[in-house]
């Protein structure tokens, strides 16, 4: 198992380099640069000096090599806009993003899994149909729009909840978490339901019933445990996405998260910040993915066996599953 983990961690290196390459070049070659933005009123001498300092008087390749060199020394560079180490910037924004991500995933998990199970066990019932229609609607709603409407209703009209920022503790969290959580909930309810429906038809549940296992236990232990893999996959994917910052929701609720930092940095052509934050996001997503893979092993002994024999093959094995899930779940929201 630990060899598998090491292998996965090592696989981060090409991802980091690949991501840095793509993002750095896209940002750097975009029209304008951060120096021009902040240097609007700078004197020409000072600006030239800064151009030299950040390598803007050389080619983009030079700047990229400089960036990679720093990267190997463990530095993600300095933001031109914020005049601050990118890692510091990221870490300052991370708590808010983590908070929002875990709150929304938590809300979604707590509500959607029981709902999905109920829909599956009462297949064709009113509960089932209603929850599926709701899930579909939830999936079809642009989440920024939902956020706006929630803010208008609960903050403007009712004055129940704060509308922006992260200064009022748990109260601040509620609206953003519901906004992000709705899409997740829709996806997870659908996944749970279809996965449970798959499992509910399995012979081993009949075996369990035949030996006198109470229905509750049949569903919540025997069936759920088997249905967990796709559910975990979706939770992992969504958690990963949420860690990249719920860009749009953060924008709606002025949430001081990573997503808003990145998007504003894109608008300011802050190459170092964008590249650094996206690398860190990719790393975070990979870590979540790794945790998910390890969870697979806990849930499914067959996969556990494969991890100990070799990581590469087992990854392949889970790949198509996740891909098939892409079909089942995540067609709606972007962020």
């Amino acid at each position, binding site marked *: 198992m630990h060899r598998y983990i090491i292998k996965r961690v090592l696989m981060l290196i090409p991802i980091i380099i690949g991501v840095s390459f793509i993002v750095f070049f896209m940002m750097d070659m975009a*029209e*304008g*640069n*951060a120096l*021009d*933005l*902040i*240097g*609007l*009123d*700078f*004197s*020409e*001498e*000072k*600006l030239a000096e800064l151009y030299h300092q950040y390598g803007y008087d050389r080619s983009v390749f030079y700047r990229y090599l400089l960036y990679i060199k720093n990267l190997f020394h463990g530095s993600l560079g300095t933001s031109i*806009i*914020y*005049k*601050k*180490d990118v890692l510091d*910037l990221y870490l*300052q*924004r991370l708590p808010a993003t983590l908070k929002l991500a875990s709150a929304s995933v938590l809300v979604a998990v707590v509500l959607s899994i029981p709902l999905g199970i109920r829909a599956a066990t009462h297949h064709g019932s009113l509960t089932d149909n209603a929850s599926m229609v709701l899930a579909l609607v939830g999936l079809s709603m642009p989440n920024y729009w939902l956020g706006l409407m929630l*803010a208008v209703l609960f*903050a*403007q009209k009712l*004055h129940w909840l*704060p*509308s*922006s*920022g992260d*200064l*009022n503790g748990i109260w601040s969290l509620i609206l953003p978490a519901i906004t992000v959580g709705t899409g997740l909930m829709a996806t997870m309810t659908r996944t749970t339901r279809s996965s449970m429906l798959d499992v509910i038809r399995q012979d081993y549940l009949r075996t369990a019933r035949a030996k006198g296992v109470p229905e509750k236990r049949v569903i919540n232990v025997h069936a759920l445990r088997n249905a967990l893999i796709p559910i975990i996959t979706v939770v992992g994917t969504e958690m990963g996405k949420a860690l990249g910052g719920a860009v749009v929701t953060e*924008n*709606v*609720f*002025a949430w*001081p998260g990573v997503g*808003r*930092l990145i998007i*504003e940095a894109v*608008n*300011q*052509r802050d190459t170092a910040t964008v590249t650094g934050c996206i690398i860190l996001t990719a790393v975070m997503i990979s870590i979540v993915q790794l945790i998910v893979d390890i969870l697979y092993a806990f849930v499914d002994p067959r996969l556990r066996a494969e991890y100990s024999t070799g990581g590469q093959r087992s990854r392949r094995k889970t790949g198509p599953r996740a891909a098939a899930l892409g079909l089942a779940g995540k067609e709606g929201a972007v962020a």
Partner: protein
Amino acid sequence: MKKRSVVVLVSLLGAAMVLAACGGVAVAADYEEHIVVAIDTKPTNFEPSGNDSSVLNRLVYDELINYNKVTKELEPALAVKWEWVGDEATVLHLDLREGVVFHNGNAFTAADVAYTLSTNVNANIANYYDHCDIQGDYSVNVVLKAPNADFVNLLTNTLYAGVKDKESCEADPDNGSAIGTGPWKLDLEHTIPGDTIELLVNDKYWGAVPTAKRLTLRYIDSASSRLLALQNREVHAMMSVGETDVEAVKADPALEFKSGSGVGPAKYYFLAFNMMNGAAKDNLYLRQAIARAIDNEDVILAVGDEEAEVSDGAMWGYDAPYRASASDFKTDLSYNLDEAKALVEKAKKEAGGALPELHLISNTSKSINMNHCLVIQEACRKIGVNVVIDETDGAGVNAKTKFNAGGYDMIMHNIPLETWPTGVNRLMVKGNGSNNRALLANEDVEKKLFQATASSDPAVRDKLYKEVQVYVHDNAIYVPSYYGSRNGAQLAGVEGIVWANDGYPEFTYATFKK
């Protein structure tokens, strides 16, 4: 003394401020200790000459000289006395205030002035500043490269003239410049750059110490979200009420609408042509046609600014000196659709057939800019000129205008009329900014502007500045639109905020009665 002058002003405004003006008087318990305000531009770093955040700089730093926007007088701040040495405006002598300390406890001396000026990145200062002759701890001569009669005024600008601590800057290149002498100190530990700025009161401030203990600046980019936060009492005050929300704010008894302190409009909005390589640079008729096709009343309706006034063509702010008046102009560029159509025909002849499609850029992340652009587009459509709005953000605008790569033909832009003379300066100083591009394409104009700066004779300046304005107007290089207002809102019970009409309210002495 900027802060002190504010105290004077504020004390006129309310009894609460009288209390604050007494300095160390114990704070009454029924005042909120923690004030939160929503701001519309985000301070991203703590370099007073380069962070483009007047609001923050006013709180954390002091300038050498203060400009009182109400009395329009210069007042002592960190410098208690200033005078030009000799006839030419090249050597400025300053006597500094004694006993002032920075937030870290370091004493403020002439070395800090020299350091602040020599490391200043802003073109206004850096293009003229040469060196300092330090004559004592509290006495210094600032030597300029070329004569600049406006230099004293430049030293008042909160956008770039805040004084830094030399010692801390040299010790800590990253955060050293976050140390100032102002009434509020940055709480870097709790500050999230680009989102939330946390400030703690500076008990050792040389002027009046604010009543509140904590001040939080929250960056909320959308006006509606800011207002929502205010209505929801998440913040005590907000900058820039959205144009359609003004009515709602005025109608809400819990809120107070605030607009300028009677010094006139805050910004001059205009359409400028790219005279370096834009498609209309050689076609005067086309420029004039567009100028005459735009109904500025429509523009004002579209941007929804109730206090806006149609520009009379002068580029200078309102009651500023050296301002050209309508009678100085030789060409009529007022709205007249028939004239515009006739001009378009001439323009077609000039262009030898079809007119080019014109690319209009603007920082459209602000809705008033967007709406303004839409009116221009519609006006041009009516006279058969096709306009493409290149939606772009600040970085895009700067990139396109800086390099003049021909990526645009017109720009819809604005300049803050930061009251005399800095607004003028933004137009005339050869920086990298976008506003002056159209002008600087003309060597003659450029020469006149520099001559005016160097001269301290008001008559010479008046003549040169007016000539520039007339040239720009008559050639339809700048198409004037309107003078717009800046505003804000606060909860009823909030006192002490100075809603200066340059768009940069001063939150230093904000209080809120519980």
